[in-house]
């Protein structure tokens, strides 16, 4: 295995590209606005250090130690019987990749629409309802998938080169948009709303759980993606400093996105604030943002900047998801190019239902989004099976480490992260009961407890019984069969 990141910058930028996705730009501003502004930010910063960074350190050390994809790394570190847990991590990220490609396609289509002026003067709601779920959305899904696969085709060097280009550009675009938003008349009200703390809100447990969820979803910790990139770390590479850097870099980008969106909303249309933040991710981004930009001086120009930034964020995250699946297939004995051929076919086929139906996409987002919390739990369990202290001594604080972590990290990974993961899963499933009080156990509705339990049960049963087969495949004993 000779593929390596050429430089530490390459690893950092590629991993930042993985972490900074659409969730930073379209979910964070909405969640912070509907959960107490400044109070939410306090909890959000705290959980960066209580969930994201500890799990990122685990992922980096798993990849660096095992030099294998998620299934192989779990088997290598936690024993042959733990392969199914790695399989779960991989399955969640793969299932998300199928519909995330659709989302990346939306962003690309809106970037093109903003340049061609299709969003000007018209009704953005009609444009969105005519596009989402249409055949055109399938073609943009295919375009996004093709672009991302073309990057991964060239291996780690391809990923590194693209990250070195796109991440600085993404940061530049978001900074320009944030500066533009802050300098709009009336933008100070947006900053006030974002940063004004309501201390009484800190007594609301929902705010803490939303802050923890935001960290779990938008930093990429516990998804298996950092593990995949860490396979290609140089051997004398630091782990803890990289994890802190990426966690803080990701949240720094979220803060800029929050400033950009909320200042724009408050400056242009403060009266519709509640309607805008309550419109959901897609409503905010694809219906309200074009309307707001249209009322802004040079709005068409800034709108294309916004959708270009969103496209870059989506594509760099999609690239990491595709690399995760590709890596698993390489571990099973396929060449990179054969593996990517399968990924394209699988991505087109399994992404198609999400491209053609928003209900299906929301169902998958719900089922595997909550599944990521179980992935985080599995990482913590695997670390415990290997020995959290041993992992800390031998890998985290091992060769090349710039920053030594203390026993606090072992406590966080061994105790705090598993407790957080269980609380989050129970809370989300409990919350979901109120979304559909009559049919919350219905297994074939988009966002119910029943659909989560059914899909998880099928997936976990299959993974558990295929554990030995996955182990043989991953260790190369059945290479001839798959290649």
């Amino acid at each position, binding site marked *: 295995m000779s593929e390596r990141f050429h430089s530490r910058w390459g690893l950092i930028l590629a991993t930042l590209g993985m972490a900074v996705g659409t969730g930073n730009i379209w979910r964070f501003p909405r969640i912070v606005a509907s959960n107490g502004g*400044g109070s939410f930010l306090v909890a959000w910063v705290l959980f960066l250090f209580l969930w994201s960074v500890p799990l990122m350190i685990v992922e980096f050390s798993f990849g660096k130690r095992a030099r294998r994809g998620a299934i192989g790394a779990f088997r290598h570190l936690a024993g042959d019987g733990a392969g199914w847990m790695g399989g779960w991590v991989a399955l969640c990220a793969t299932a998300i990749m199928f519909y995330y490609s659709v989302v990346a396609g939306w962003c690309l289509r809106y970037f093109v629409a903003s340049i061609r002026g299709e969003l000007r003067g018209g009704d953005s709601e009609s444009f969105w309802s005519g596009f989402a779920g249409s055949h055109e959305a399938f073609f943009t899904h295919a375009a996004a998938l093709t672009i991302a696969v073309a990057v991964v085709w060239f291996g780690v060097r391809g990923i590194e080169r693209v990250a070195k280009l796109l991440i600085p550009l993404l940061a530049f675009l978001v900074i320009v948009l944030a500066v533009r938003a802050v300098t709009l008349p009336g933008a100070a009200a947006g900053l*006030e709303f974002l*940063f004004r703390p309501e201390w009484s809100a800190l007594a609301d447990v929902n705010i803490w759980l939303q802050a923890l969820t935001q960290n779990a979803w938008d930093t990429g910790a516990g998804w298996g993606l950092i593990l995949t990139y860490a396979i290609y770390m140089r051997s004398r590479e630091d782990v803890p*400093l990289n994890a*802190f*850097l990426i966690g803080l870099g990701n949240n*720094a980008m979220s*803060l800029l996105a929050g400033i950009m969106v909320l200042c724009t909303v408050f400056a242009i249309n403060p009266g519709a604030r509640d309607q805008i933040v309550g419109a959901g991710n897609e409503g905010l981004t694809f219906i309200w943002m074009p309307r707001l930009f249209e009322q802004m001086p040079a709005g068409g120009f800034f709108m294309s900047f916004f959708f270009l930034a969103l496209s870059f964020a989506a594509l760099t995250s999609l690239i990491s998801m595709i690399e995760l699946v590709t890596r698993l297939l390489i571990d099973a004995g396929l060449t990179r190019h054969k593996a990517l051929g399968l990924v394209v076919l699988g991505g087109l086929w399994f992404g198609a239902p999400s491209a053609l139906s928003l209900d299906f996409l929301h169902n998958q987002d719900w089922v595997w989004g909550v599944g990521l919390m179980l992935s985080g739990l599995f990482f913590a369990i695997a670390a415990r099976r290997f020995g959290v202290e041993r992992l800390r001594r031998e890998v985290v604080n091992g060769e090349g480490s710039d920053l030594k972590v203390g026993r606090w990290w072992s406590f966080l990974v061994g105790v705090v992260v598993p407790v957080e993961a269980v609380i989050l899963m129970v809370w989300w499933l409990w919350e979901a009961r109120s979304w559909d009080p009559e049919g919350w156990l219905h297994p074939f509705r988009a966002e119910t407890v029943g659909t989560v339990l059914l899909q998880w049960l099928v997936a976990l049963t299959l993974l558990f019984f295929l554990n030995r087969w996955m182990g043989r495949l991953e260790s190369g004993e059945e290479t001839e069969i798959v290649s």
Partner: protein
Amino acid sequence: MSTLAVVLMVVICGIVWGGFLVLLSWMMVSEKKKAALVEKGQEQT
């Protein structure tokens, strides 16, 4: 903007952006040191 909001903005942005920039500088210095050590090792061999 109220004073409280300004204070929280400075604290949160200080932790997140300040922390990021400090660690970035740390990483760059560390990489320079590591590169110098490698160069020194190559000269000796």
